[in-house]
């Protein structure tokens, strides 16, 4: 791999199908970057959750709004940006899904899963004024990726 950063960007409609599309696109990038099966699963799940968050909470499922997905592949890591056109939110306002009183909640686990599955995770104010999720996974060191991807974690 060269030291040059590779950049991929796509604008998605606010619809359920965009979740699968985003996951598939990022999985292809992750596989091409050398991530193993387990890391690909974690990356794919995180992208799903990021786009679900944008679809449901950010854009409120309003079809006139867009979801902006970008992937940067550097020499060290894969960085994923998911930007919505909503009003933004603060991580401190997100309830802890592991708290006893929230265990039986039917929603609110997406942020937790992204944090658990990625190496870095943050939410910033995006150029649209909406929330921009920025998350990354370190690339596996050359020659360390096992078939199940344990070397990349």
């Amino acid at each position: 791999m060269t030291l040059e950063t590779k950049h991929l960007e796509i604008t998605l409609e606010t619809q359920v199908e965009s979740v699968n599309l985003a996951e598939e696109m990022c999985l292809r990038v992750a596989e091409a970057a050398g991530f193993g099966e387990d890391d690909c699963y974690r990356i794919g799940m995180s992208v799903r959750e990021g786009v679900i968050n944008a679809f449901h909470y950010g854009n409120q499922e309003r079809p006139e709004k867009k979801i902006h997905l970008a992937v940067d592949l550097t020499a060290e890591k894969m960085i994923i940006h998911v930007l919505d056109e909503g009003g933004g939110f603060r991580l401190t306002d997100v309830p802890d899904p592991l708290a006893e009183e929230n265990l039986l909640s039917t929603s609110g686990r997406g942020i937790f899963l992204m944090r658990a599955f990625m190496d870095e995770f943050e939410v910033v104010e995006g150029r649209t004024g909406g929330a921009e999720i920025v998350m990354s996974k370190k690339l596996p060191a050359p020659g360390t990726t096992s078939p199940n991807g344990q070397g990349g974690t």
Partner: protein
Amino acid sequence: MFLRATHRDAGQVTVVDFSGRITLGDGSALLRKMIRGLLDDQRKQILLNLADVDYIDSSGIGELVSGYTAVKGRGGDLKLLHLTKKVRDLLQITKLFTVFDVYTDESTALRSFQ
């Protein structure tokens, strides 16, 4: 991969065999429809066989929880059977492993409803 579901009765217990992914959209909707349909038919002892479900996202988890509380609210019980590693790991990190009764053997699971 789309979610598919079939169900069979084992005495008072209904076993639902799922295969595919339980994710936002059709997968979650089918899970909801299946559980609500069983409750409408007064089948309140439900065992979900997830042996062929290798992927659940937060929407699917939410639907599992919703089904669990709906069944409990009607005086029944909803339990899980044959979790794949990915699904088991997901339930463990979300602490839902402490909420659901999970079994690795169907006959043991069926006896637990008695």
